């Protein structure tokens, strides 16, 4: 890495270890470099997934447009979903975890540095394999969850779905490895004094999340193998004619798919649990409840999968049982919102860009969570599942939730990773364009669902207000595109010319701020003593340390 002007010099050891720059990155087993590669690759796929979304929104801007053929549209919406979930959200969360978990526990690297690199390279090459499908006969086009029998050979004879299955298998193996690596790292490499109960909440969430990963990804990997065996070796796992069942695919897939959405949100809760306390100048309100509720979510997440199948006709008994468990999981998710608000209460709030995103998260994630509770009410689901109401819901939790928290984390932690502050001026522009663009795109989609518009349609009839509602959504999407461009611009100019950050620009309290920005290769010259959840607060406030309460 080039040394930014004004940052503290890196250690001599690190300077001597650097061979040619590209080779040092490609052969790196250092968690910080691997993490940056994760983040850069996710950012790249985010732009591609975003372009796919814009293409879709152009096609849907008005009824009856022919901008994209139905075949092209179906490939693009499938790739948009697959990209955003597997190539953007999960990797960006793994990347931030990979960078900051070792630092926050006072370790010098992950438990298995080489396996760490493997996880990244499987992700990159899996993503490239997925996109190669465009050149190899057509991208997958059966939706990101590829229901059988549509995904089977008779109905999808081109190899797109095989690319999809193989790419996701590669990525899935890497993800499980990353989960294992994070668990072992957190369990075994904590610095002396950092008991499990003193873990920063982000690390705690990553720990719980990693268990989710190692239990949820294998069902997906197994299902992908079964699908490939069906498609290539003429088996009948998921085709009814051979004695198999298309419903089996749904059960297997959603056993992965539901925990997967929590995999995509628990680290987000972790970011918020770091950012809000620091910028409110208060510790998190109710650490115990927030930590315990995370475990509750993880356990419950394995018992709600069939809420994706309420329209299948499983029977009222099954529907209601899964409806009840789905309502239950809303409780540990929802109470965190109150804990975060209570953290702000009585604080001294600093409106940095990171804090703006965290505050917006509280509102937009609540909207997404509430529409989720509506879906747990079985008859409501019977009306609005598979419509734009669910598209609105998922984007409120994944974009208004996870992505907003990722932006908060970016503004919070970019200084640590690069030694430079992101521009707060451009940050505010980024924030407001995002907030307005996001709500303009997705709020109206709730109404489109109630108006009867199904999801995954390349066009729609000229019914009252469908055109104008879709047009508003399209305009919002382009605002979001502009917002993302501003963010990328901010990253670029700040990396080159941003204000030097120093060790702890935010006066935060966890261990990653007790070293240089960026940290040396071994992370710490010396780790401060850890006697509470906020070691740096204790150092700075010897008259009122946390461990004295």
């Amino acid at each position, binding site marked *: 890495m080039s040394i930014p002007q004004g940052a503290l010099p890196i250690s001599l050891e690190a300077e001597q270890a650097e061979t040619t720059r590209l080779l040092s990155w490609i052969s790196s087993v250092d968690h910080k470099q691997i993490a940056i590669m994760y983040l850069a690759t996710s950012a790249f796929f985010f732009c591609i997934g975003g372009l796919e979304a814009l293409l879709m929104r152009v096609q849907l801007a008005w009824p009856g447009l022919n901008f994209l053929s139905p*075949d092209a549209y179906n490939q693009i919406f499938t790739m948009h979903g697959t990209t955003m979930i597997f190539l953007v959200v999960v990797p960006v969360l793994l990347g931030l975890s990979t960078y900051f978990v070792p630092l926050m526990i006072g370790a010098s690297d992950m438990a298995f540095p080489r396996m760490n690199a493997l996880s990244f390279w499987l992700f990159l090459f899996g993503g490239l394999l997925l996109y190669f499908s465009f050149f190899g006969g057509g991208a997958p086009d059966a939706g990101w969850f590829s229901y059988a029998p549509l995904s089977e050979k008779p109905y999808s004879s081109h190899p797109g779905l095989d690319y999809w299955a193989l790419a996701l298998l590669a990525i899935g193996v890497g993800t499980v490895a990353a989960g294992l690596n994070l668990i072992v790292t957190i369990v075994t490499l904590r610095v002396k004094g950092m008991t499990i109960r003193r873990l920063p909440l982000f690390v705690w969430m990553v720990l719980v999340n990693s268990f989710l990963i190692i239990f949820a990804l294998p069902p997906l990997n197994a299902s992908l193998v079964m699908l490939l065996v069906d498609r290539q070796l003429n088996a009948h796992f998921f085709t009814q004619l051979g004695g198999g069942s*298309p419903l089996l695919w749904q059960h297997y897939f959603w056993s992965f798919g539901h925990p997967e959405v929590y995999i995509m949100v628990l680290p987000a809760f972790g970011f918020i649990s770091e950012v809000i306390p620091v910028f409110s100048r208060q510790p998190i309100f*109710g650490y115990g409840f927030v930590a315990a509720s995370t475990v509750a979510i993880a356990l419950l997440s394995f018992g709600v999968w069939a809420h994706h199948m309420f*329209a299948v006709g499983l029977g009222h008994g099954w529907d209601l049982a899964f*409806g009840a468990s789905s309502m239950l999981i809303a409780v540990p998710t929802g109470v965190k919102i109150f804990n975060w608000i209570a953290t702000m209460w009585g604080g001294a709030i600093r409106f940095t860009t990171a804090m703006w995103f965290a*505050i917006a998260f509280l509102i937009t994630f609540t909207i997404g969570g509430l529409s989720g509770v509506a879906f747990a009410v079985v008859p409501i689901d019977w009306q609005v599942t598979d419509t734009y109401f669910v598209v609105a819901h998922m984007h409120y939790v994944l974009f208004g939730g996870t992505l907003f928290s990722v932006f908060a984390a970016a503004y919070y932690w970019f200084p640590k990773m690069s030694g430079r502050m992101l521009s707060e001026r451009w940050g505010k522009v980024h924030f407001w364009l995002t907030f307005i663009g996001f709500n303009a795109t997705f709020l109206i989609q709730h109404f489109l669902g109630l108006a*009867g518009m199904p999801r995954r349609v390349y066009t729609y009839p000229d019914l009252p207000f469908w055109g104008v509602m879709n047009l508003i959504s399209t305009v919002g999407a382009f605002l979001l595109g502009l917002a993302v461009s501003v963010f990328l611009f901010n990253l670029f100019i700040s990396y080159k010319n941003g204000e030097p950050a120093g060790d702890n620009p935010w006066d935060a309290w966890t261990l990653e701020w007790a070293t240089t920005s960026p940290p040396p290769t071994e992370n710490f010259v010396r780790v401060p003593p850890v006697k509470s959840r906020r070691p740096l607060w204790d150092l700075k406030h010897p008259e009122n340390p946390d461990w004295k309460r």
Partner: protein
Amino acid sequence: MSHMPVFSPSSSQALLIANLFGFVLIVCAAILLLVTSLVCYSAWRFRSRPNQPEPAQKFGVKNFEIAWTIAPIVLLAVIFVFTLRTTYGSDPPANSQPDLVVTGQQWWWEARYPQAGFETANEIHVPAGKPMTVSILGGDVIHDFWVPQLSRKIDAIPGYPNRLVLRVDQPGTYFGACAEFCGAQHAWMRFRVVVDSPSDFETWQEHEAANAATPSIGPAADGSRLFQQLTCVKCHAVRGTDAAAKVGPDLTHFAGRQRFAAELLENTPANVTRWLTDPQALKPGCHMPNMQLTTAQIEPLVAYLETLQ
């Protein structure tokens, strides 16, 4: 509200769902208002002032946390009780013998009336006031039968027939759509449910059950001969003739339908002409190939199809 079918129910079953939905939306709106107010108030009230020292540090109040855990549980329990009632009320048990068998095909809806012994496509008629047991099946991949103003949606799965009760008291026309991605033309797998008065329904049913008359003079007669000679008979049935294939929609009473190609086009001679000229241009990816028909073939065929009232 009339532009929001989910909230303009026309059956008692859909009304139950709409009422529950309205209640849940009000509860959600109240919670959102509470959260937003708290967020905005705390952000404003506790904004930092210049040179403000660190505030007194607070770590939590167990009683508050218990309270705001229990309150949502209680609220959800109440909602669950209503959910239970509406689940059973809006989706009543169906008879074992269906009055109507709907099969979802890529990308049209086959509707068979077993008692009357006929089949039609995309335009489904039911009598007002009578609970119709509808059996719903997938013919190829998974589809989903959804008429928001009338009932819940339910998947049409190959090998797993589902059953639905449709009971509408007021005559009218209601729009439906496939609501499970089923391939290239999922977007144009729409349909309509026409609720007739009981006497109108009887008339319609008798009419549909009757065979088509074969015209004997004029272009329509030429068209009927072409229909039998060309590839049309490989996919389409017209009762009263030798055409009995079930690959594509039954055309016996094609001209009596308001729209065709699963609601894509208004059923006019001009549109039928465009369709026969090149169906792939209008509904790319659909399973009717461009048969490369000449104008000399299309004109009589259209005339014939227009006689299939």
